[in-house]
């Protein structure tokens, strides 16, 4: 089966420093692919190249058979790529449900005129968005908090909220940026269970993560980055014994 996402030769230079050098990576349909590596390995840079928050110095990114590396982030979202960021908080001043409804932007298109004139199109889409949001909230286990201010949720539920927002746009590829970082034990396992459930439903997931146990539980395949380059790639059981990986990362005090 052709890959859903193919990153080829991705390179990103900041001045004279390579944050990422000639990185290849692909995500097959239905696969959960994890990218791990020590701090400064280039994980976040790779993530932002795929999401469109950064532009590659060289290399290409193809999604669903088409190049997307020159598309603005919101256009990538419309193609079906959804992102949950690590360091981007929930939308403050909006309820949990409203936060999730923002995610439906990727698959809806009613503009300002239809909103101002309250055209049938606006009404139809609002109904649809509400339905999608209710489903996404339910899948993420957040329904009981739907009407609460998003910023009042504990961090673990805020991460789940980001996943729910992503799901509301019916994505085909979900990008998760260090979803487990900063979470406490039970929050971490709840989130892992949610991701496991999505994986079971056949969603393709690219997971950038620092926590090796989290990755071991969830990933079909793991790509290991160090100093901006791929040093190993394969199922977790294989790469954990790879000497380069052990030296660079797994053997280190994590």
């Amino acid at each position, binding site marked *: 089966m052709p890959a859903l996402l193919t990153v080829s030769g991705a390179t990103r230079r900041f001045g004279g420093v390579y944050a990422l050098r000639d990185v290849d990576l692909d995500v097959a349909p239905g696969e959960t692919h994890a990218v791990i590596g020590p701090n400064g390995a280039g994980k976040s840079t790779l993530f932002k190249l795929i999401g469109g928050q950064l532009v590659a110095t060289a290399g290409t990114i193809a999604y669903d058979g088409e190049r997307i590396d020159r598309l603005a982030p919101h256009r990538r979202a419309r193609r079906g790529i959804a992102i949950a960021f690590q360091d981007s908080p929930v*939308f403050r*001043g909006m309820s949990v449900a409203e936060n999730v409804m*923002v995610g439906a*932007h990727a698959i809806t298109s009613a503009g300002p005129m239809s*909103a101002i004139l309250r055209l049938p199109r606006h009404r139809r889409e609002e109904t649809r968005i509400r339905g999608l949001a209710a489903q996404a909230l339910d899948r993420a286990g957040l329904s009981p908090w739907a009407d609460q201010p998003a910023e009042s949720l504990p961090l673990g539920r805020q991460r789940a909220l980001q996943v729910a927002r992503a799901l509301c746009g019916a994505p085909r590829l979900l990008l998760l940026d260090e979803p487990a970082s900063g979470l406490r034990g039970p929050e971490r396992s709840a989130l892992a269970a949610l991701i496991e459930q999505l994986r079971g439903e056949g969603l393709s997931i690219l997971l950038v993560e620092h926590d090796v146990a989290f990755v071991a539980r969830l990933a079909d395949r793991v790509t290991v980055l160090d100093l901006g380059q791929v040093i190993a790639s394969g199922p977790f059981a294989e790469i954990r014994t790879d000497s380069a990986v052990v030296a660079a990362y797994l053997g280190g005090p994590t």
Partner: protein
Amino acid sequence: MKWAYAVAAVGALVLPVVLAPGQLTVFILLGLSAMAVVGLSLLMGYAGQVSLGQAAFTALGAYTSGLLSLHHAPPLLALVAAPVAAALAAVVVGVPILRLRGHQLAFATLALQILLLSVLSGAQWAGGAVGLQGLPYLSVGGFELDQDLDYAYLVVGGVLLVSLIAHRLVHSRVGRGLRALATGEMAAEASGVPVGAYRLLVFAVSAAFAGLAGGIYCFFLGYLAPGSFPVLLSIEYVVMAVVGGLGSIAGALLGAALITVVVQLLTSLATQPGMPSYAPSVLSYAVYALLLIAVVLFVPKGIVPTLRRSL
């Protein structure tokens, strides 16, 4: 909050009839400010953009209406053209300047207004510093609005219209996108929100509201001059928006009403016999500054959002 809206509605309908002629003028000017402030509050509260030159769009709207009616365009067409011209201008200048953030954008909009005022003062076709005179009254289908009372109700209608548009915009897919980008631009964009286009949209909408206020102003007053749209007017709009509460339509209306009444009281104080000639401008600038500082310190979210939370 329901009763507050009821009081406001009754006030807006009854006040024009009971107010003395001089107070009726103040009422009309208050309504015009309120229209511009509703737009500015959207811009500042939802798009996170500060405009210190919003009165430039009021001026653009007013001059559009004025010039068109002087050239014998039907007055209603001239009035409709005011928000359209202001919105178009906002789109044209918005593409480059909305790339700026925070203080830079504030100064860029301020610079635009100063530029516009100096162009208007120098332009023969716009009447120069004297401005446009002998403008007709607004007339719709043979009915001429030649009484202050007519304009008072026209302004009430205008405020209702912009409030309704703003309300519907905020409570929609686009509105949720706007609210999201105000606090999480990167995440909003990754959710499919076209951040740049939405910023431009709010900027254009806010300009259209200010432009419509300018259009009504032109017909109400019957003459226009660059001096009618000083930078102080832009600052007044900002203070009104902040005092009432950014991103709140009710806040914009309350802020406009409150500041207008305070300024009127101070102006009548400053023009008492025996006050120095600079008293009015000193008092108004000083009061804007003091109010802004007080609100930012003690009610940082503005009056209406703070009341909402404590009720």
